[in-house]
């Protein structure tokens, strides 16, 4: 179930590490409990964003691939 105040971030067309940098900035602006959906198409984003989310103690709810586009669902937990 999606909260109405959940956020979306489109980083398609951007090269790493910009997708993970923009993810970090967006997460910092969010409230604990909110979910951020990030889309990216740089293959390096999969590793960078997954590693950053885990290292910073947030929860990666889901990762989906559709063609070149990778979609992450990240829950801010602290």
């Amino acid at each position: 179930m999606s909260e109405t105040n959940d956020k979306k971030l489109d980083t398609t067309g951007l090269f790493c590490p910009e997708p993970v940098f923009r993810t970090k900035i967006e997460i910092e602006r969010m409230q604990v409990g909110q979910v951020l959906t990030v889309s990216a198409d740089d293959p390096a984003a999969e590793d960078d964003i997954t590693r950053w989310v885990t290292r910073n103690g947030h929860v990666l709810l889901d990762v989906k691939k559709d063609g070149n586009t990778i979609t992450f669902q990240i829950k801010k937990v602290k």
Partner: protein
Amino acid sequence: MGSENSSDILNQIGNTPLVKLDSLSIDNATYFAKLEGHNPFGSVKDRAAYWMIKDGEEKGKLTRGKSIIIEPTSGNTGIGLAGIANVLGYKVEIVIPEKASDETKNIIRSLGAKVFETSDDLCPKVGAGTDQSIALATSIASSRPDTYYSPNQYANEANFMGHYMGTGPEIWKQTDGKITHFFTGVGTGGTITGIGTFLKEKNPNVKIIGCQPQQNHLIQGWRNFEESSKPDLFLKRESVVDDWVSVNNDEAFSVVKEVLVKDKLLISPSSAAVYACMKKYKIDGNRCVVGIFADDGRKFKSIYAAQNIMNEQEFNDGLREAKHMSKLAYSL
């Protein structure tokens, strides 16, 4: 920014004073400091910033009202670029490691630039510190080539030219061609190769001596070549360096107060590191030695307090008594 108009400020870049260091000079040896803090935005990096922007304009890479200048930097280049671009009417975005000093970030913001702070956990495979900032600036610029221009001071020939055409000839003239030894630190390599190449063309016997900080050092803007790679700009003319001298954090910080007392100069950590190298490097016979003091000590009050070099009161007293302090184009 003060009341001076833009051309006044840009005309103040370069032609910095060469000041005799009484504390090191003896009968047959004269030691000088080239006080680069006298550039309008407070450091030697104003030269590279100005030359790189002018070069970008001449090559059609920069268009006023459209282009955004983006650059990774740990300090002085960001201040110089932000200040000069502000005068010339460009937007600037500076990518800086989050551990850079708050004073530096605040100066850059006060000059109208946007600041992006990078942390070492963003993209671990590219390295730490400034390497994270370089990766982010490169990625932002490369996905929007029509808008962004990254001067890239680590490879930009205009950085070299600013010293080859400016600082080198100034030193030659200010010493009446008598210079025998030249000392400076190495960050991008623009200063040592630009000045060194010019001086060697005038007199191949001038010795060019590079100062190397310890690993994990505290000297802003310098690189230790065991822990960081040599920049492309330095590699192109690496052979101009005749010798290297190493300096550790303690040696550098320990001379800050000594220079304040003996020479009445309030110097930065990198200037102190150059002074320490000039002091410990053995030279026989008649000599005329010049060292680059890249900026003055005004931005380093908190660092000097943290390193137990001088407390706030001692710093303020030193600032009042110091000679050769310049007028900056911004407020600290």
